[in-house]
């Protein structure tokens, strides 16, 4: 059977073309992609880099659950969820989600569902590095 999901956690550079090629199909009227990029500041502090680490085997399982849920919940054709780990500089890409469907609405909705859920459940953490220190994101009251 044709794979409907592509899940990856990698220390290599993410490839947008990989994700869109995986989801594209003649039956689809569109592809929606979300590309997460490293922003240069947090609350006016200059960020120098983000260091992502993960519980990689579990992260893959949780990402697979999100992809399977998206396929159940929305009339989409395929979904790819790829996440990078390691040190990423400003503008580099920690996450790509690509979704295809016959009609665009399903892909938009599924893509938003996937990134929102990923940020809640997938065991990956980022440490923000500033010019004068570093902070684990979300970890302080």
């Amino acid at each position, binding site marked *: 059977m044709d794979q409907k999901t592509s899940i990856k956690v990698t220390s290599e550079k993410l490839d947008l073309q990989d994700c869109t090629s995986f989801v594209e199909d003649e039956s689809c009227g569109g592809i929606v992609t979300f590309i997460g990029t490293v922003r240069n500041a947090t609350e006016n502090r200059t960020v120098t880099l983000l260091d992502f680490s993960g519980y990689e085997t579990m992260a893959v399982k949780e990402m697979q659950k999100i992809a399977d849920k998206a396929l159940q919940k929305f009339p989409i054709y395929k979904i790819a969820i790829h996440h990078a780990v390691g040190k990423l500089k400003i503008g580099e890409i920690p996450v790509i989600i690509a979704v295809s469907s016959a009609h665009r609405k399903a892909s938009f909705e599924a893509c938003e569902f996937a990134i929102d859920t990923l940020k809640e459940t997938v*065991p990956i953490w980022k440490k923000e590095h500033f010019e004068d220190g570093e902070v684990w994101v979300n*970890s302080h009251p």
Partner: protein
Amino acid sequence: MNINILFFGITSDFVGKSKVSYTINQKSTVKNLKKEITNLYPNLSNIKEFAIAVNEEYAHDDLILNDGDVVAIIPPVSGG
């Protein structure tokens, strides 16, 4: 019985390592374990919460642990 505990994110900084082997009573629950490790590593209470995964699945407080389980301490995630 023995379990392995993995620490991720800020909790690995608190504990100073990413993995420990730990001896716990038979039939201990996730809730028991949370209490024990927070006593053992008091700075874990500096974060508002942490989840526990057992053998790579999120676990409820009442789950009973088994010998050889791999338990992960999961502070609030921040991927994406």
